[in-house]
Each structure stands twice: as structure tokens, then as C-alpha cells.
């Protein structure tokens, strides 16, 4: 008889929270198109006055659910147990950054919500909170980039006949890590591809994260299912 395991319960939260993430992304009025860093303080203040509710509700959703990535990352860590590694070092590396990755994003939601809490405060202060939110959101990639690098390395080192993840998943993680790099430099310019609303720092980075979640979700689901089958055969 097929038994629902705890891991399956965690795994199927992913599509559910992905819907919430996507919804919050569309509800936030500053993503489509992304707010420009060249806006004057008055325009930034007007944005928060005009869209107070949508900023608050979208960021409450993100604040609630961005950390839902952590249990998914722990499922990946559990799959890593079955890799042909001699030590648990690579798992410790992933655990070491798994919390900070979504917490960096959570911190940016706090700044966005503070900006929207008193939209009538001095425009220069609203701009300050808006800058803190956008820089934390855009540049706060060190932990996610590290997860990709650690995963890629773990998969390359998983040298066995039936590796936990295919080799292409390692290449894919390297590619995503590279796609995240330009966003780290978003503070250097207010215009162009590197600015926080630019092609590289906003579109490439966020599309890479979205694709990473989908692809890792699929390969994680397959690896978990294969393992459950193995467990049933042994039983």
C-alpha cells in the first residue's frame, strides 16, 4: 500500500506556496515594472501613498511564506545524505546558509512594510526605507548563490552508478549562481542593466530564482519518489 510520508507532505507544500509567492509578486505594485532607483523622494512617497494596501498585503504574504523555502531545502539536505560523500560537510554547508537565504528576503519585506506603515512621513525617509528594501532584496543573494555552488559541488562529488541528482543539475546550479552574480553589484548604478530594476539585477536574477525553484522542485520530487520506491522494495 502506498503510504504518505512526512517528506511528501513537505514536498507538496511547494506548489502551494509557489502559488502564494507568485500571487504576492503580482499584488506588489512595484515589481511590474520594477520601481526605478532614479525616482525622486516625492515620487517614491507618492507611490507608497497611492498603493499603501497593496504594498502591505503583498509583503505580509511574502513575510509569512518566504521562509517556506527552508523545509524544501531540508528535503534537499536529506537527499544529500544518499550522495557518495565521505563526510557530512556539504550538508552542513547547505544548512549553514539555508536559513539566511530566505531571511535576507524577509528583511527586505520588513523595510517595505515600514515604508508603507506611515506613507505620510518625510519623503526622504520613505525613500530611505525603499532603498533599504530594494538593496536588501536585490543584493541579498550571497546565501542563495552559495546554496547553488554547494549543491553543484555536491552533485559533482556524488560519484556513484545512480547518483541522487543527474550531472546536468550540477551544471544548472552553476548557471543559476552565475545569473545571480550581477545583482550583487546593483548598488553601483541607478540606471542600466545592473541597476536594481535593470535587465540583469531584476529580470535575470528573479527569473533564475523562479526557474531554480521549479527545476529543483521537479528533480527533488523525482529523487524522493525513487527513494520511497527503494524503501518499499526493501520493506
Amino acid at each position, binding site marked *: 500500500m502506498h503510504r504518505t510520508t512526512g517528506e511528501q507532505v513537505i514536498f507538496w507544500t511547494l506548489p502551494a506556496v509557489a502559488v502564494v509567492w507568485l500571487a504576492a509578486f503580482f499584488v506588489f505594485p512595484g515589481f511590474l515594472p520594477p520601481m526605478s532607483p532614479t525616482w525622486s523622494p516625492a515620487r517614491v512617497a507618492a507611490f507608497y501613498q497611492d498603493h499603501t494596501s497593496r504594498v502591505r498585503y503583498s509583503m505580509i504574504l511574502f513575510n509569512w511564506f518566504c521562509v517556506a523555502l527552508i523545509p524544501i531545502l531540508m528535503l534537499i539536505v536529506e537527499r544529500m545524505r544518499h550522495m557518495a560523500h565521505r563526510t557530512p560537510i556539504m550538508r552542513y554547508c547547505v544548512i*549553514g546558509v539555508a536559513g539566511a537565504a530566505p531571511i535576507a528576503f524577509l528583511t527586505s519585506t520588513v523595510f517595505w512594510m515600514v515604508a508603507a506603515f506611515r506613507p505620510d512621513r518625510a519623503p526622504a525617509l520613505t525613500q530611505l526605507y525603499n532603498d533599504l528594501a530594494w538593496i536588501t532584496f536585490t543584493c541579498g543573494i550571497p546565501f542563495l548563490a552559495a546554496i547553488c555552488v554547494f549543491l553543484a559541488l555536491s552533485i559533482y*562529488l556524488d560519484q556513484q552508478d545512480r547518483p541522487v541528482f543527474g550531472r546536468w543539475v550540477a551544471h544548472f546550479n552553476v548557471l543559476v549562481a552565475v545569473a545571480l552574480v550581477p545583482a550583487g553589484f546593483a548598488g553601483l548604478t541607478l540606471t542600466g542593466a545592473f541597476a536594481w530594476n535593470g535587465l540583469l539585477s531584476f529580470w535575470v536574477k528573479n527569473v533564475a530564482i523562479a526557474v531554480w525553484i521549479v527545476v529543483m522542485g521537479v528533480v527533488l520530487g523525482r529523487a524522493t519518489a525513487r527513494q520511497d520506491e527503494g524503501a518499499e522494495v526493501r520493506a
Partner: protein
Amino acid sequence: MTRRARWTDPKRELWLAWYATVAFYSLYAVVFFLVTRTQPPGKPWYTPEQVAGWFAGRHTGLLVGFALIFVLGGLSATALALITYSIRRMSVSRAFAYSYLILYAIAAVPGFLFICVAMTVGTMRPGRDPAVLRWLYDLGFLSFSGTMGVFLLGSLIWMTAILLDRNGVFPKWFAYLNLCNALTEVVVAPSWLFHGGVLAWNGTIAWWINVVVFGIYTGTFIHLLRQVILREDFGTGPLPAAPRRDSAHRVLEEVMAS
């Protein structure tokens, strides 16, 4: 040693983590001392106008230096992973190892992400009100030196584990160096109170002595972690002495043959 032999080295993950640790701390020193020149730190008694001048004088350095940390800062986890592994190798409960890992992992956001964000935001708009710039300056330096508890408890956890350990993973004197590092987190607390003097965030005690202790501590543990990797036999009993250099190849061949 052939390329293939190195790739199948049972210690390959440990060595990768160790070299990444060396790379991270080198990057950290270069970024904070040379590129951003945020160490030694700015003066806590600066007026808003002086703070504006401080940001202006470091414009490109702050933005490029902290961008490098934004990109590569996650490498810091390799040191945590190695230390966690070393505690696991001791004859103590794994609770020590996992406590250390979690304490240092959660330190990352207030301990180094905040200063990167505050300084980047302070630099990206040169025309910003100097009073607001000083707010960011305070946030950057105080969050960086004033994130204390996680490092205090983390060092004490590592110290206690070393003192209780019967596997001889680290020499006992290193436990007391952990205590010294923990004490730096105590003497830095007054930097939350004073705007000038030896206890301020740039003072002789709260900065100069602390940075020397931290430097010695970090250099020492990186060296000792290397020794732990050299000595590792993947057993659970006492950690053997480091193999002599000339016998290292023989040991590796034996491991590969088995």
C-alpha cells in the same frame, strides 16, 4: 599524485571546505581593510557633514567591496561546516556541533549583511541628507561590531566541547583562545554606550585589542582545522597524530586500495 587519485581522496570535501575557508577570510580582510576601508572603522563622534565626507571619500571602494561580499559572502558557511564537523569528531554530544552551526548561521544577516546593505544604501545616493547618512553609518558599524551574542555563545560552545573532548581533536589551550574570543564580545558591548574613548566602536579596547584577538584566533583555527583534516582517520576514537609528510602518499594508497 594523479588527477584521478586526488578526486577520489576521501578527504576531498574537507579540503575543498578548508580552501574555501581560507579564500573567504582572505576576501573578508581585503574587502574590509583595503577595498572599503571600513576597518579600522569610522569615528563614532563624526558630525553628519563629516559622515557625508566619509561616504564620499570611499564611494567606489564601498560599492565594489560590499558587492564582492554580496556575491561571495555565502562561502563563510564552509568554515562553519568544518568547525561543526570537527566538533562532531569529538567525544561530545552532537548537540554542541549543531548549536555551533545554527548560532553562526543566524549571525550572518545581522553580523555582515546589515553593514553591506547600510553602507551600500549610504553610498549609492551622494546627495542624501547627511543626517540620514549618519543613521546608515551608525546602523552599519553598530550592527557589525554589536552583533555579539551569537559569537559569544558560539565560542563558548566550541570551548566547552574542546574541554570535554577525549579524542584530542584540538589542543586544550585552543579552548582558552576561544574564551578570549568570547571575551571580545563582552568588551565590545560598551560601544553601544560610548561615542568616544577606548570603549567606543573604534576605541583601543573595543576595536584595536578585539581585532588583534580575532585575527590571532582566526589564523589559529584555520591552521588547527588543517591539522584536524590531516589527522582525520574517519574513526570515532582518539584522533591520531598527523602522518609524516613522506608517509602521506602511502596512507592514501592504502585507503584507496581498501
